[in-house]
C-alpha cells in the first residue's frame, strides 16, 4: 500500500510516499527523515520526549499516525531557532541549566514553546509546572525548566507588550 502524504516540516514542504500505515510521526521523523532531535522515551504518550508542534499545537508524536496527518505543518526542535540563533526558550534552558542528560530536552523545549503559544499559564510558576507535567525528566531538572519557561515567556512577550503600550 502506497500512501502519499504531504507535510510541511520546519517550513519545508515534503512529499512523502509511505509504504506502511503503521509509521508514527515520531518514527517518520527519526527513522526516515533523519530528524533525530525528537526523542523516543516511551513510545506510549507517557513521557513527552517526542513532543513536536503539529499545526501549532504541541502533541506526542509517538501517538500520531503519519498517514493521518497529511497536510500538516510540523515544527520540530530542528526548526526552532531562526537563522542560526537560538530560540529564547532554548537559550533560557542553557542559562537555567534546565537539563542534565539532555534526552528529554527537545521535548521539554517544544512543550515550553507550545505552552507559551497556548498562553494558559501566565507568569504563575504553579501553572507552568502543571502545564509542563506532560514532560518527564528523570534527571530532575524541573526547577530549571520552570524557570527557563517563565523567563523565555517574559522575553518573548516583552516586545509585544511594549508595542501595545
Amino acid at each position, binding site marked *: 500500500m502506497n500512501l502519499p502524504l504531504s507535510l510541511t516540516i520546519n517550513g519545508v514542504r515534503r512529499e512523502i510516499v509511505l509504504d506502511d500505515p503503521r509509521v508514527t510521526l515520531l518514527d517518520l521523523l527519526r527513522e526516515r527523515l533523519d530528524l533525530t532531535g525528537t526523542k523516543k522515551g516511551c513510545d506510549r504518550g507517557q513521557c513527552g520526549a517526542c513532543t513536536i508542534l503539529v499545526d501549532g499545537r504541541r502533541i506526542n508524536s509517538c501517538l500520531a499516525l503519519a498517514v*493521518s496527518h497529511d497536510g500538516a505543518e510540523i515544527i520540530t526542535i530542528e526548526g526552532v531557532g531562526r537563522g542560526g540563533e537560538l530560540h529564547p526558550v532554548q537559550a533560557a534552558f542553557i542559562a537555567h541549566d534546565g537539563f542534565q542528560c539532555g534526552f528529554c530536552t527537545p521535548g521539554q523545549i517544544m512543550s515550553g514553546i507550545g505552552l507559551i503559544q497556548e498562553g494558559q499559564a501566565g507568569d504563575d510558576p504553579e501553572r507552568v509546572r502543571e502545564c509542563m*507535567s*506532560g514532560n518527564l525528566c528523570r534527571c530532575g531538572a524541573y526547577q530549571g525548566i520552570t524557570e527557563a519557561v517563565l523567563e523565555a515567556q517574559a522575553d518573548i512577550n516583552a516586545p509585544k507588550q511594549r508595542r501595545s503600550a
Partner: protein
Amino acid sequence: MMNFDYVRPASVADAIAAASEKGATYLASGTNLLDLMKGGVSRPSVLVDVTRLPGLDRIERLADGSLRIGALVRNADLAHDAEFARNYPAVAEALLSGASAQLRNAATVGGNLMQRTRCAYFYDAGSACNRRWPGAGCDALKGENRLHAVLGWSEGCIATHPSDFSVPLVALDAVVEIEGKAGRRELPLGELHRLPGETPERETALERGDLIVALRLPATAQGFARHARYIKVRERTSYAFAVVSAAAGLRIEDGKIREARLALGGVAAKPWRAREAEQVLAGAAPDAAVYREAARAALSGAKPSGDNAFKIELAQRIVVRALTLAARGTPDRIAALPGSPFSSVAGA
C-alpha cells in the same frame, strides 16, 4: 503494532460502511487506540480515520438551549473555550485534570468517551482478562487490585473506567449522538458505558459501525455553573489517573439545595452517577451533615473487589469535599492544579 488497512472516508455514511466490516475500528487522534495497538491489546485490521469528516469539530448552541459538541472537538479546545468553561466549569476542570497538555491537544471528545480501562491485567497481554478474551478469567480479581472497582463490579471484571471528562458529563445528563447502520440515535451518556456483569467484553452500548458524532449537554446543565467542582485524588500531583474522583454540581436557591448532581470516577467500570445521593441533597440545606449522608448514600452499594476497601472511605470523603467546594461557589478561574485537592481550600 500489527499491520492494518487505512481508510479515510469522506462522509459519515462511508465511515460507517467501512467500520461495519469485521475487524475495523475508528481512528480519531489515536491517543488511546495507538497505545492499545502498540501494547498488542487492540489488533484492528482496518483503521477508519474519521478525523477529516466534515462538520464534527464544532461547538454550537442549539435552539433548545442545549450545547452540541462535535465528536472531533479537541479536549484542550473545549476546556479552553471561555464560554464553555463558564457554563460547565466542572467539565472543563475535569478535562484539564486529565492526561497532559500534549494529549489534551490531540485527544478528541468522541475518542475520550471511548477510552478504555487502565487495568494492568487488561493491558498485560500475558494475563487473563475477560474483556480481551471472553471466558479467559480475570487475573485482577485475586491480583494486585488496590485501585480496582468498588461499585458495580462482577466476578468477571473489576476494572474501572479511567475518564475524568465523563464524570461531570454523566452528572449533567449528557447525551451522545450516534450515527450507525440504522441511522441516527441518541443515548444518555450514562448508558454508553456498561457494567461488566456476565459480559465484560461488551464495554459500551455501541454496535459495530456506530460512530459517536456529537455530545450534547442539555439546557439544564448550565444551571449548576455557579456551584460546580471536579476533585480528583491521584498518586502524583499531575499526569496520573484518578484513584477516585468526584464531580458535584448544585443548584442553590434561598439557602437550600434545589437540585444536586453527583458522579464518581475511578470506582466502577463506568462513570458512576450517584442518584441516591442527589436525592438526599435535594431540598436540604448545604451543610456537612447532609454531605456526609449523601456520601454514605453514594457508596451504599459499594464493596471491595480486592485490596481496595480504602477506596470506599476515600470516595465518601471526596464526595463530601466536592460538595463542600461546590457549595462554596465555582472559582472565577480554573485552579492552577485542576482537580487537585491542593488547588483548593481544604474542607477542614
